[in-house]
């Protein structure tokens, strides 16, 4: 009899420790990065590190502003491309697609999630870089193809499976009664989807988009292969950029070779973590508002 209670107790404590461990991991990483960033924080003021545009490690200048801008630009472009496409795809898959089409296409999209980052990068070099060259000439400017747009397109492709998988699930869980009610009142299927189902699924859709964003912020290899890696804040999508993950990956090799470089890169990692964290907090606030909106309304 006691043994059963003991097993119950152990199971719950085990799950608690697993949860605590996962949560602690983020804190451990953040603290570790902070400790390793102390050398450079003690030498340079924080405002210099974050807002200075001059990146000359050999002169001791480590301004991260171009890289912050690079990250925001590339992620922004990726999400502008990805969000509409993904939402429309998931609505189609959940609402309109005949069962056979859905069962063929869904696994294919899930497969996208399994493709290694490097493969996306190679695909980007071979296909996307020439593509952005043509797009640029269609708009009247020229580019050698290694720019924000290439990075954004490659990133959008990597984010598709994440957003589509979650969005499709979310839309499918909207109670069928809501759709039936709308259709019974004479709406078309699209009206029902647009006005009723999207509201029911809004919280989940936002969560899916946030997850996509989070993946987009951190993707390193594929983006650095096509984005141009020029340490200057971009002023258009046809200019090269240098996102933070690319900075860290490219210059990992200099960590032991130039004084303070290792510390600067780890500080860049801390900044990236902070950006993702701020974004998650902001998204969570929006999510709470949306959910509260439904509870009251």
């Amino acid at each position, binding site marked *: 009899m006691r043994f059963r209670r003991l097993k119950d107790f152990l199971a719950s404590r085990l799950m608690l420790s697993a949860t605590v461990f996962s949560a602690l991991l983020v804190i451990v990483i953040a603290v570790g990065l902070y400790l390793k960033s102390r050398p450079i924080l003690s030498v340079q003021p924080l405002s210099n590190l974050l807002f200075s545009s001059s990146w000359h490690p050999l002169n001791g200048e480590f301004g991260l502003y171009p890289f912050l801008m690079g990250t925001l630009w590339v992620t922004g472009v990726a999400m502008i491309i990805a969000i509409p496409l993904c939402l429309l795809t998931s609505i189609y898959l959940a609402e309109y697609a005949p069962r056979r089409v859905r069962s063929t296409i869904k696994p294919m999209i899930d497969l996208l999630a399994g493709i290694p980052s490097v493969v996306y990068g190679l695909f980007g070099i071979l296909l996307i870089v020439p593509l952005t060259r043509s797009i640029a000439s269609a708009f009247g400017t*020229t580019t050698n193809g290694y720019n924000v747009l290439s990075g954004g397109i490659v990133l959008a492709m990597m984010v598709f499976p994440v957003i589509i998988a979650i969005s499709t699930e979310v839309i499918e869980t909207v109670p069928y009664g809501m759709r039936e009610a709308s259709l019974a009142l004479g709406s078309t299927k699209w009206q029902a989807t647009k006005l009723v189902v999207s509201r029911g699924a809004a919280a989940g859709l936002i969560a899916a988009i946030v997850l996509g964003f989070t993946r987009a912020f951190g993707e390193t290899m594929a983006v650095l292969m096509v984005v141009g890696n020029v340490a200057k804040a971009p002023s258009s999508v*046809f200019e090269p950029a240098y996102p933070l993950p690319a900075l860290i990956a490219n210059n990992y090799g200099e960590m*032991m070779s130039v004084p303070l470089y290792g510390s600067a890169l780890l500080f860049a990692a801390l900044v990236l973590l902070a950006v993702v964290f701020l974004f998650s907090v902001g998204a969570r606030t929006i999510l709470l508002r949306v959910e509260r909106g439904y509870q009251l309304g």
Partner: protein
Amino acid sequence: MHFLESAKNAVKSSGASAAGRICLALLMLSLFATSLGGCGGQTGGEYLIDVYTRSDACGAGQTWAQYLGNYTQDDLKGTAVYGDPGLEEAVRQDRLAIGYSNLNYAYDMVSGTQISGVRVVPIDLNGNGRIDADEDFYGNKTVLLKAIATGVYPSPPARDENLVTKGEFKGIAKEFVRWILTDGQRYCSEVGYVPLTEEQAENQLAKLGNEELETKLEGRIAISGAFALYPMMGNWTEEFHKLHPGVRFDLSAGGAGKGMTDALSGMVDIGMVSRGIYPAEIQNGAFWVSVTKDAVFAIVNAKNPVLQELLTKGMTRQAFTDAWITGNVTDWRDVTR
């Protein structure tokens, strides 16, 4: 634009204030606008030089920068691409490109001639505006290796390839390095590298010390680093494994910088570094031996608009500096004037 409407609905139903909604709408609009417009990138021109460099911390970039003057890889301006193969592919795709590459990526391993799509730019060593007979050794790998070995091709951009570890080489790694410095040298010319002279090899062996490992050689050796040395190391690890089947290798590329960082942090036994060692690295415990020699070359696209003049006139060091460091020369026609 249904998405925009749905987005608007989502924002409305989220309960955000009117001001908040306006801000959000403006943000989306401005993102949309700037993403379409922009006169960024290059501003046209059939002859605009498109400069490329390496994004990863590498020996080729550092060596090339040293050749141009007392510069470092960070001083090389241009679109930065990851890895030697990546840089080559970029040059192959862009008619107006100029980049740099290691010998064994510019020349085909088997045939010894230059690979297709890309051409090596001869260096006008005496600055007389044309490539004389004694400056013309780019036809195939054999002639080129001889020029590097005799010092006719300047050093930099020719350079020693080094193997680095923290503190000192130990155990089977030490025996492997010893083998590279003795028997391994005979494979160099065939693969496409300049072997060490007897004297150089002895100097490097002296660094290793004389104690030889008595027991049978077996275990794992982890090696990472320069793309430049990767082909040779692939050959060496294969040959050594044939001699000592108990020894297995984990070999990866990733750039000279990665090789150095991996070696100094103890993640690999041997780091391949295709450049000189910095004082800061020595302070961090770097110990190295030189094992072979190769070179970096400037490369352009095979369909470059002024290719014929480039091949007959070559480019001087000053021209390279103008392209990569100062940006003073931006037109292909000015290069060959």
